[in-house]
């Protein structure tokens, strides 16, 4: 049995259905990310699991305990679910230590002190224990919020867009740090975000959410490489959707033949990632370079294909093509694109 189970969960606000009959399972110790555009209902999902909203239907089970279900609503303070808020929601009248110890008030004093100390060490803020929270930097605030949520040793930690308030330069470093802290604490965590890169790099498994429903769940590699739908393919990374005709083991498109994972028949669409195409300079090529985005380690080209289609191609920046160059574009040797709707 999974550690956290969400079954048939629905929640509406007036006429707006924020979450529809949603199912989700999280294993113990797993770091799960819910990825979706803003307004897809992911924050509502989090608030229902935390107990701040009451579901209209469905149930939430945390560690074999039904915390929300027909006829049973456990108030948030009794759920053993910690939450890290988007803007951290630190208590301004308490020090770092006071914030972290807030959820430990019913423990004996010694246990409280040692848990507080241990958690502060975990996030590397033991030297700031007595500092007021308004004196902290953005990154430190986030670590306090995380420590505060982890200190009572919850069954599940929820993180609501935890990096959206930080500088882009800080983000990558903190992402790694937060992941290490969560793994150190052996916490089960559910993180919601609209940032694909964040979700792909951080999570053990990824749930793609759209209009209140989960479109696909799986490890990042799978969600990226084998998107379930055209929308999921487009939302998680960049993609070229090509139409073609499938025959035994391959699909024939206007760019050439791609391999397929499983045999298919008839007319299909394939989602081809920009790195699944390659190109070479060719005066009589089949496409023209329209734009070039140089990103250091690689380059993203925007091409106009002779058939009129715009294509995205990503290549290492070993050899550069100029805007206006005529090029020949074809499938990369090992490319196995996914079939989509």
């Amino acid at each position: 049995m999974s550690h956290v189970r969400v079954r048939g969960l629905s929640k509406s606000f007036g006429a707006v259905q924020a979450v529809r009959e949603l199912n989700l399972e999280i294993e113990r110790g797993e770091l799960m990310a819910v990825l979706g555009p803003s307004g897809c209902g992911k924050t509502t999902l989090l608030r229902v699991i935390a107990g701040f909203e009451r579901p209209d239907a469905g149930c939430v089970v945390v560690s074999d305990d039904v915390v929300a279900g027909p006829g049973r609503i456990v108030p948030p303070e009794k759920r053993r679910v910690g939450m890290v808020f988007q803007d951290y929601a630190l208590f301004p009248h308490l020090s770092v230590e006071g914030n972290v110890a807030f959820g430990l008030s019913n423990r004996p004093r010694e246990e409280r002190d040692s848990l507080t100390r241990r958690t502060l060490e975990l996030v590397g803020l033991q030297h700031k224990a007595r500092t007021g929270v308004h004196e902290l930097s953005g990154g430190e605030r986030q670590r306090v919020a995380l420590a505060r949520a982890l200190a009572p040793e919850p069954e599940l930690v929820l993180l609501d867009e935890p990096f959206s308030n930080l500088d882009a330069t800080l983000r990558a470093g903190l992402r790694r740090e937060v992941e290490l802290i969560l793994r150190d604490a052996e916490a089960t965590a559910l993180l919601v975000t609209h940032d694909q890169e964040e979700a792909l790099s951080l999570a053990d498994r990824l749930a793609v959410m759209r209009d209140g429903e989960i479109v696909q769940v799986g490890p990042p590699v799978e969600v990226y490489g084998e998107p379930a739908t055209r929308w999921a393919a487009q939302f998680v990374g960049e993609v070229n959707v090509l139409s073609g005709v499938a025959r035994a083991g391959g699909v024939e498109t206007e760019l050439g033949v791609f391999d397929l994972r499983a045999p298919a028949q008839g007319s299909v669409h394939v989602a081809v990632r920009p790195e699944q195409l390659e190109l070479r300079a060719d005066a009589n090529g089949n496409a023209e370079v329209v734009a070039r985005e140089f990103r250091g380690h690689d380059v993203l080209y925007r091409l106009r294909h002779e058939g009129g289609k715009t294509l995205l191609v990503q290549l290492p920046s070993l050899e550069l093509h100029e805007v206006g160059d005529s090029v020949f574009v074809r499938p990369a040797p090992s490319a196995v694109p996914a079939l989509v709707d």
Partner: protein
Amino acid sequence: MGLRRLDRFAIGTVLCAVLVAGPLIGLPLSFFVAPGGLSRFSGFVPEAVEATAILLVGVGAGTFLLGTALAALVSFFEFPGRRWIEWALVLPLAMPGYVFTLFALGLDLPGIRSTLGAVCVFTLVLYPYVYLLARAAFLSQSRTLIEAARGLGLSRARAILRVGLPLARPAILGGVALALMEALADFGTVNLLGVRTFTDVIYRVWFIAFDREAAMQFAMLLVSVTLTLLVLERLARGRARHAQLAARGDVVPPVRLHGLAALAAVILPLALVGLVVLAPLAQLSAWSVQSINEGLLAPEFATAARNSVLLAGMSAILVPVVALLLAYGVRASRSRTAAVSARTATIGYGLPGSVVAVAVIVPLGWLEQRIDGVAGTGLLLTGTVIGLFYAYVVRFLALAWGAIEASLIRIPRQLDDAARGLGADRLDVLARVHVPLLRAGLVTAALLVFVEVMKELPATLLLRPLGGDTLAIAVWQATTESLFKTAALPALLIVLVGLLPVALMIRMSGRGGVEVEASPAVGAWVEDPEAVPA
């Protein structure tokens, strides 16, 4: 909203509202229960209507002219000592009408015992309401508007008259409405000056004729006038908000006054504050010293002082606590019903103390008889301070609620959620998160209630138990008997205590008006002086 959604916090809020606002329903009901009560005293009605009308017109015009002129002076002109004068002009707020009346009667100022005399007294002590609101409106006006008017060919003075004044009109009218509500609520001044307004009639019908139904019906008449003013004030304030939203850019730069004009700008306001605050304080001090030396102090003085401090102190705890529970109940239950209930519960502040007293005593008396029938406790409610505290809660709840609510809405809701996620239930959230964060608001609320209860006269007079005289009653009692020296010391104490919230308000505004301790972690965390009602 079905009952299903009403949890215990919402129910608590609704119950509290029923308890606080419920007695007021008795006022209109009295017309059905005992029709004709009013006709027994029909002789009083024309007199009361006439006096009240003259009072409203006179005080309205007086506070409008004085308050607006002074506000324009300190907002649009620069002269030596302006910053001091700006705040000195607020000081009359600390002077209760009946204390100034004691001063005026003691000096035997000619013509003071008349409706016109009452108009003068009210104008002098109530103009700060208009002054404060008009000044805030003038200071929020953008210079581009005035400059646009001048670019269209208006002189500076005419630009102020034709653009500045109309823009501030909602705020000024709001101030006038507040001043008029205070004048209507007053009992001490009109009673001492022999002006037969509604509050005075209620007192006489109640105490001299012992006719409760008639008193309730007179109270109802007074309430309808007050409610009309309240509605006007709300309307005016609603529009003021739009006017302020429209204002952008720098403030209007003040013009420096020179020579005689500058001299007049300093001397006239100072003379006003001298007359309304300093001279009475000096005279009362002198009389106090004489009364002590000559042994004229009333023998009950010590008891009255003790009663005042006890009543004010206990109310300063009780009323803010009720207000806090009410405000938090609305927040914790997130219920519309609770929000509407809280609004209803705070209606009492617009109502005169005498009306509140008359309204609460009837249900209390009824309940008391039932309890007495069972337990034989006698006048458990109306004969003790319980009735008095009840009236204070009804009357001053809005005052405390305003101060607390203004701070409460600045606490981000996420803090509540964060605390609950960490195992705190809703009462824990109140105790461990809100109360520490609301400390300033709670202290303000307690201070305001303390001072108002110290000054309060009509409700205390009608509901006090035997031997329950307060300083305010001592002042009134001695003044009615023309024992001005005896009245001086208690009056002096009341004014000195009354200076506390005025000083607090000045200090808060002195810090640039708005103090921001903003950070993404705690949300924008603002304290502003608007939270303190004048």
